[in-house]
């Protein structure tokens, strides 16, 4: 693990980092300020690249010496050759894509593995909030009001598992995170994970 690393990373990013073999080739899609990439490059000797839509994020990354391009994953992923990377990472972004399914296909074409993390819309707090107040939930994982949220394709852990099955994508590892960022492996019961996991991280391959 990474106790020695000076900057504390988001819990899901740490889980993702732990899934990646040292020295591999990684593309981080939607790499934001480059926290994960920076860790992977400097702590795991990864050949890391990133794509980020926001100019501020790109400037921060490149200014920090990271190889990041300003671009839109939904169009730019098509440029890369097949299996150009060992891992393609998409953290907390799939739900903001216009076409999540085709994005997922691209991730698995460009990478030998894809690592996807997403918020779970079936978490019991969200269900409870919706039932009791009758309003779209706003919480630390989903901090936006419905009218300004970039999350246009929210799904549940169960939805995502079903999509993978439909696309014949193998889920090699799956871990859920509770409210405090404590990770739990998916046990027997998808029902329980879907109820208590606030977000989930999947290691996928075709």
């Amino acid at each position, binding site marked *: 693990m990474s106790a020695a690393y000076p900057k504390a990373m988001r819990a899901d990013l740490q889980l993702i980092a732990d899934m990646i073999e040292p020295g591999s080739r990684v593309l981080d899609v939607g790499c934001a300020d480059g926290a994960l990439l920076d860790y992977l490059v400097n702590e795991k000797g990864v050949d890391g690249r990133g794509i980020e839509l926001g100019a501020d994020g790109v400037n921060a990354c490149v*200014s920090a010496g990271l190889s990041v391009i300003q671009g839109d994953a939904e169009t730019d992923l098509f440029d890369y050759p097949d299996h150009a990377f060992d891992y393609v990472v998409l953290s907390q972004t799939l739900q903001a894509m216009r076409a999540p399914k085709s994005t997922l296909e691209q991730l698995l074409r460009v990478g030998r593995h894809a690592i996807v993390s997403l918020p779970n819309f079936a978490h019991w707090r969200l269900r409870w909030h919706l039932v009791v107040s009758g309003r779209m939930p706003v919480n630390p994982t989903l901090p936006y009001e419905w009218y300004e949220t970039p999350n246009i394709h929210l799904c549940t852990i169960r939805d995502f598992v079903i999509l993978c099955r439909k696309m014949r994508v193998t889920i090699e590892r799956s871990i859920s995170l509770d409210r405090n960022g404590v990770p739990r492996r998916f046990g027997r019961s998808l029902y329980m994970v879907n109820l208590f996991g606030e977000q989930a991280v999947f290691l996928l391959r075709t």
Partner: protein
Amino acid sequence: MILPKGLVSAGDPIDFVLPGHRVFLGCDRPLKLDCGVELSEFPVAYQAYGRLNKDGSNAILVCHALTGDQFMAESHPLTHKEGWWDLMVGPGKPLDTMHYFVLCVNVLGGCMGSAGPSEINPETGEAWGLSFPVITIADMVRAQAMLLDHLGIEKLFAVIGGSMGGMQVLEWAASFPQRVFAAVPIAAAAHHTAQNIAFHEVGRQAIMADPDWCGGEYWRYGKRPHRGLAVARMAAHITYLSEPKLHEKFGRRLQDREGLTYGFDADFQVESYLRHQGISFVERFDANSYLYITRAMDYFDMAARYGGGLANAFVDTPIRFCVISFTSDWLYPTVESRRIVHALNAVAANVSFAEIVSNGGHDAFLLDEPKFHRVLTGFLGGAAQHRGLPKTPTG
């Protein structure tokens, strides 16, 4: 070295000595140009800043733009204005001369000491004029590579350039991938568009329409096509700016007058500014060089040379790229940089790409743009780390 003939008119003192370095290359093996002509024993003028380290691994080549020259970080010997990249090159600046050995070479076809139409053709003993062979961006780069051979620099740490300099960077990356560690094309394009060619043609026609051009042999008659070259510069200068920048700088403000004069004087500040740009340009630039260099840019089309696919130029490239564009650049707009990035992604090259928000237009790469400078500094720092360059200053 005395001032090239094209910049000397009758009555000018001709004992002006050009500072910097100048060597004659192609003495053993001539430079074979794309047009088929071979150049032997031709001069190349360059300027260097900082110190080359022991293993020669800290050299940066900066490629200058159409009207630039090798005097990028010092007072210009003719105009006495500060160097065109004074902001960028020097101790503590993004191209830190405490760490890097920074070279800038006057391009082939130029008029500041390298072989060009205003230099002497050794075979005839007179200026080349229009008998100078038409050169290409690739020819410029080959001449630079010969200079590096001469200097004993096997591999550049980085090759960096804006505008036409960026074209040379791309050419370096495609032609000499093993001699470049990092490449930074800024505000550049991998080909000249119809619009780019069109603007250049306006400039060339303005020069050739000036009676003082004398069919390209103006020096024979002690003349220089000042007016034509100034108009060419004025038209080109507009393409280097942006509408917001022009609006911010001049708007419709009048030049030292209360109201319109109902004549064709420079009523508006923008007119006065352009006239000044034109006039000051002709002091330091040769009209025939302008024809040759704009032609080289028009001929530039990397994809065409690589079977129609730009990506073919970069297959298996080991180079770390950083492509930079500016939002308000309409001469080489971001879409052109993106084309380069797409080609590099198609071969899974190591590439960074940042579009810098600026209203400086194409010339933003010459301006004080802190975000741009941060990006370039950071990219070079990351590359230096990968290259294993020491963090302590050289020398």
